């Protein structure tokens, strides 16, 4: 990699040479690497797939915004291994999750569960939105009802005065 850059930088005045340009372009096709090491993987691809899916949902307690699959932290590695041990031991996905949640709490789940203590979290945005809609509707309703009443028609007396005034101004 470093050589590529050196090659590219070598000729400051000239253009990038063909080979280094191709190599630099090749960088655009890189895919994100997962932290899962080959030696951690389970032999059974179906079980390994389950481990990956579970790993995506479990928070690395060290880096906090990465899943244990994405993280290089030692604790994330330990949890990946322990998740695979549980799967090999025949645990269902739900049982594996419960195993980890029993030790680290709901916080370890990247997607918080829907339950009594998280109602505000899940329903709060909808409640706020409903409240905002209610306020806006109320505002328009009030404005409509408070619209100025059209003035009563002119009385015969007023009409006479109006005609007189219009004549005076020569219209």
């Amino acid at each position, binding site marked *: 990699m470093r050589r590529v850059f050196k090659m590219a930088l070598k000729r400051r005045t000239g253009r990038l040479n063909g080979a280094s340009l191709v190599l630099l372009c090749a960088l655009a096709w890189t895919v994100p690497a997962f932290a899962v090491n080959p030696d951690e993987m389970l032999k059974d691809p179906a079980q390994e797939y389950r481990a990956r899916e579970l790993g995506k949902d479990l928070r690395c307690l060290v880096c906090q915004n990465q899943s244990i699959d994405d993280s290089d932290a030692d*604790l994330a590695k330990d949890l990946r*291994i322990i998740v695979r041990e549980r799967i090999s031991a025949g645990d269902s996905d739900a049982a594996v999750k419960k195993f980890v949640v029993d*030790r680290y709490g709901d916080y370890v789940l990247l997607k918080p569960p829907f339950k009594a203590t998280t109602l505000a979290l899940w329903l709060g945005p909808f409640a706020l939105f409903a409240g905002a809609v209610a306020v806006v509707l109320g505002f328009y309703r009030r404005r409509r009802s408070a619209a100025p009443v059209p003035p009563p028609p002119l009385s015969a007396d007023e009409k006479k005065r109006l005609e007189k005034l219009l004549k005076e101004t020569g219209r």
Partner: protein
Amino acid sequence: MRRALTFLPVAIFGVLALLFIKGLTLNPKEIPSVLINHPVPDMTLAPLPGRGESSGLSAANLKGRVSLVNIYGSWCIACVQEHPYLMEIKKSGAVPIHGIDWRDDPALGAAWLKKHGDPYERVGVDPPPGRAAVDFGVTGAPESFIVDKQGIIRYKHIGPITTEVWAKILLPIVRELEK
């Protein structure tokens, strides 16, 4: 009614601002433990080399007395900072301290205690993948747990113990549990 509605947005802003200010003072690394008031994990950890055959740590060792379980490792930098305070607690005789040498080469863990002093009554080795530490819900080192006479976890402290933490938080809990 109208007046109340006018001030509603200000009131909502005020409440949110207070919540956010509170949020700024919280340490996101301190995740409350779900294992408080649960029994210590069922573990049997091997002793450190050179500390005697029967000096390992098991769940049974944590019954009968209030004790402090401290997670450390020779690789852990904050543990060096914490260590003098553990030595002081040991000297005071207030509570027995047991160590768990987490994710460590036992030889290095033993050498580390030789170098910095050994405050522990028992030390168990928890090699990778740190099953005992995961059973304790450990998120990093150092961490310390106060375990009561029945072997039930009563408190978890995340990060180094200092004189202040010991005097203001841990010692009062130990005293209370010893009653």
